[in-house]
């Protein structure tokens, strides 16, 4: 009925990975990489977040239904970011039509 019990070493392994990634992200932030600083920082954050969701939050052992809802939660966030940013990014791309100047 309940989730299977996970070995302590799995949790400790995930913990060590999270600490290592935190040290890495701080170290990389001190190196000038231009645009890649942002990309590296966000990639590491996504990996860390995924480790927490998958192992600490037991989504790995969860039912397909729960997995679907977890994915939907993040997918909606994606929809919001993409739609809002596509508005801001594309402002001024199109010339104003004649109807604008009445």
């Amino acid at each position, binding site marked *: *009925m*309940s*989730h299977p*019990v*996970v070995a*302590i070493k799995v*949790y*400790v392994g*995930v*913990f060590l990975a*999270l*600490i290592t990634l*935190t040290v890495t*992200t*701080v170290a990389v*932030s*001190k*190196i*000038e*990489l231009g645009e890649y*600083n*942002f990309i590296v*920082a*966000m990639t*590491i*954050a996504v990996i*860390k*977040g995924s480790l*927490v*969701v998958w*192992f*600490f*939050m037991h989504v790995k052992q*969860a*039912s397909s*239904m*729960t997995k679907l*809802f*977890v994915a*939907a*939660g*993040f997918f*909606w*966030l994606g929809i*919001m*970011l993409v739609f*809002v*940013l596509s508005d*801001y*990014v594309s402002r001024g791309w199109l010339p104003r039509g004649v109807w604008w100047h009445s």
Partner: protein
Amino acid sequence: MIAQPELKHHFDDAGQQLESSTLGMWIFLATEIMFFGGMFCSYTIYRSAFPEAFASTSHFMNVTAGALNTGVLICSSLTMALAVRAAQIGQKKALIWLLILTLTLGCVFLGIKGMEYHEKWVEHHVPGPSFHYEEAQYAQNAEILFFLYFAMTGVHAVHMIVGVGLLITLIIMASRNRFSAAWYTPVDMIGLYWHFVDIVWIFLFPLLYLIGHTK
């Protein structure tokens, strides 16, 4: 009183009961994702509008405190995961101690956060009439970043405070033998909440403290 909270009559079995709790908790967390997502979205818009001003603020962020707090929260997530495991196998003593450890780490996080807020207050980096920014050309846009900083870390801290209250409730319940290997759903659900709050910080830390650091 030994806990034998029987199956609620509207569920077929304990598995279905746990499944519906887990699903319900994740639906709540999906609304939390959207709630924090709105703030991450406004951060992204302002950052892309004023990249230089936002980058300049990272020099005034206490990276050591932020990194330390990231470590503290990751430790607390480990102790929380181990607390859920202890509840699963019915180890009451271990459960209580791991919950107390998680609670302590949560309070350490809030303490460090409070020290950082105090630093910002002393440096006049709190948005408002007394706001003062060292690089005058960026002052107006830097104020927006500091507003976002206080809004995002503030709402996160409120979630931590709620989590601390929930952990105290769990510790009291556990010491009253309310949990058993057969039923520990509150520990499991509050564990999910605690890990979620950790994930929010995992994203806040690089965005607010690290980006633009080399410039």
